[in-house]
């Protein structure tokens, strides 16, 4: 398995506050990775570190086998679309394509012009006059046409309405399929990730809680409902993520490798949103008990 993004002990501190701490990640190549977490969890920081826009305070980060943004060759391997999809408002769409052509060694001009035509954008229009969705599409076009191995997108659809959001994501997926890109994109909406990604990283409070294949994640997490009881008395190999109790009933969200055979539990499957929310809401010290294979860290 080749690794497209590897972080070891990665941390970033702004003055007194750690935006990201002790981050250990091995993101496999060829995946579409969703990075989710509440606002302020450190998603942007992690993506900026990976794209070389930030330098780490602690640890190392490696992207496509090199230090981010170190030299022209490394820059060519990684595309980065920053939050709010910035473009030069005084420059036209055509100008942006010239910019891409002149500044990137692997630039695919036919691809870029074809995309702009397909999106129905007028090349003579200034970027400042575009709608949020169109601007996001322009930024994505620049990111794809440089033909990177890895495309990093920071909240690319945060400012878009639901329709533009869906279109953008579909368009991104087509480009991924066509050009065999690895993608890491962040979102604070799990539904965006569920629709498009096959790998998820949950970042809460500047720490990675989960990083795993989405199918594996869904297969290993269940909701157990049964009469009220102490969650400590569960068989080995069953780990409680969250527990809630009413007077008569206990509901557990657990991770387990084996089937739960105890007939007093009703076992039901979970959606990605349930799993992600469980990891987001559980108390911070609970993370200590989970096994290292899930790459949950303190």
């Amino acid at each position: 398995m080749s690794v497209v993004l590897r972080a070891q002990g990665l941390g970033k501190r702004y003055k007194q506050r750690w935006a990201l701490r002790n981050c250990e990640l091995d993101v496999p190549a060829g995946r579409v990775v969703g990075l989710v977490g509440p606002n302020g969890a450190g998603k942007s920081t992690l993506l900026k570190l990976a794209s070389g826009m930030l330098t780490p305070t602690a640890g190392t980060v490696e992207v496509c086998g090199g230090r981010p943004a170190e030299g022209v060759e490394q820059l060519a391997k990684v595309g980065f679309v920053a939050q709010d999809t910035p473009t030069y408002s005084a420059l036209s769409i055509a100008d942006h394509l010239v910019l891409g052509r002149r500044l990137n060694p692997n630039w695919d001009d036919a691809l870029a012009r074809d995309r702009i035509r397909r999106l129905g954008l007028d090349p003579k229009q200034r970027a400042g006059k575009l709608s949020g969705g169109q601007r996001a599409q322009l930024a994505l076009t620049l990111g794809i046409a440089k033909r990177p191995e890895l495309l990093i997108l920071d909240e690319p659809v945060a400012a878009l309405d639901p329709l533009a959001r869906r279109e953008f994501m579909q368009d991104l997926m087509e480009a991924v399929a066509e050009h065999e890109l690895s993608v890491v994109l962040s979102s604070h909406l799990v539904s965006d990730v569920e629709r498009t990604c096959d790998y998820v990283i949950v970042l809460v409070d500047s720490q990675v809680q989960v990083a795993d294949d989405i199918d594996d994640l869904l297969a290993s997490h269940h909701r157990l409902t049964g009469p009220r009881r102490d969650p400590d008395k569960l068989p080995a190999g069953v780990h409680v993520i969250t527990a809630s109790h009413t007077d008569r009933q206990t509901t557990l969200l657990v991770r387990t490798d084996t089937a739960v055979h105890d007939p007093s539990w009703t076992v039901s499957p979970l959606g990605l949103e349930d799993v992600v929310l469980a990891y987001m809401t559980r108390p911070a010290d609970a993370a200590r008990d989970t096994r290292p294979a899930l790459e949950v860290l303190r």
Partner: protein
Amino acid sequence: MIWLTWRQFRTQAAVMLAMVAALATALAVTGPQLADLHRAVGSSLVDQVPGADQSLYYTGLLVVLTVPAVIGMFWGAPLIARELETGTHYLAWNQGVTRTRWLATKLGLGAAASMTAAGLTSLAVSWWSSPIDRAVNGGGATDTYFPRLDPVAFAARGVVPMAHAAFAFVLGVALGLVIRRTLPAMATTFALYAAIQISVPMWIRSHLAAADRTILPIEPGGAPISIQDGARQIVAHLEEVPGAWVTSQQTLNAAGQPAPVPSSFADCLRTESGPPTLQQVDRCVADLGALGYKQQVTYQPAGNFWSLQWAETGLYLGLALALTGFCAWWIRRRVT
């Protein structure tokens, strides 16, 4: 990268070019007449400059003095601050060009354009003003026009405006990079540049070339003197050295030591009411001279103009280079 830099810069460049061209046209139209007049009347030109040309003289002075400040504020400060403010640096820094080369291209082209703009302006103004400057240096007595070495005119003549512009530009870029917001960076650039432009003539410029020193006798009918600060200070006027820039004055006693003007001089000049008569002043000055007091004047002679120009050019270009190094370090280590 050059294409992008030019594409982002061309509007500002065109505005500046238009302003320089307008000024140059006005100067080109009137300049030959002024030169003819100087050829005809020599140093007494200083009393015969037409009113319109007098305004143009001061306009030219003002323009050359402000061009570097304008460049620092409107070209330098927004160059990176605006990118940081709008987030477009994320777009620029993710293309196949390293951050260092991006900065080097922007700084290099910007500094070259700044020096060209300031150089052309200074060339046009220096050329137009040269008849007046020559008349002043040739001994034309005037309070209306500045000698070329005067702190006000010096920065508006010759090659130093180019160095000032390069420095102001890089200063603006550096402040924009550190402050990260366009308007505060522009204001700070202006304030800092103005402070430096005031400090250099006050404390530094006079040391950039070897000064001349002369000791003038204090006597009626000698070098004209002004009596200042309640007769506690004497300032001598170097009329026989036209175009000089006096950098310091010192009264010496009979032993040749620096000394304050004795209180007897003030006593001598005291009257019941009104100013002392001319005869009284002459008598008091003669008494002071008889006590052995002399006036030492330190000055830069007009002939030092070009050595001072090159020295100050070197100083400002050196500062600009140092700031460039700072920008390169900052953009790699701190803008993160």
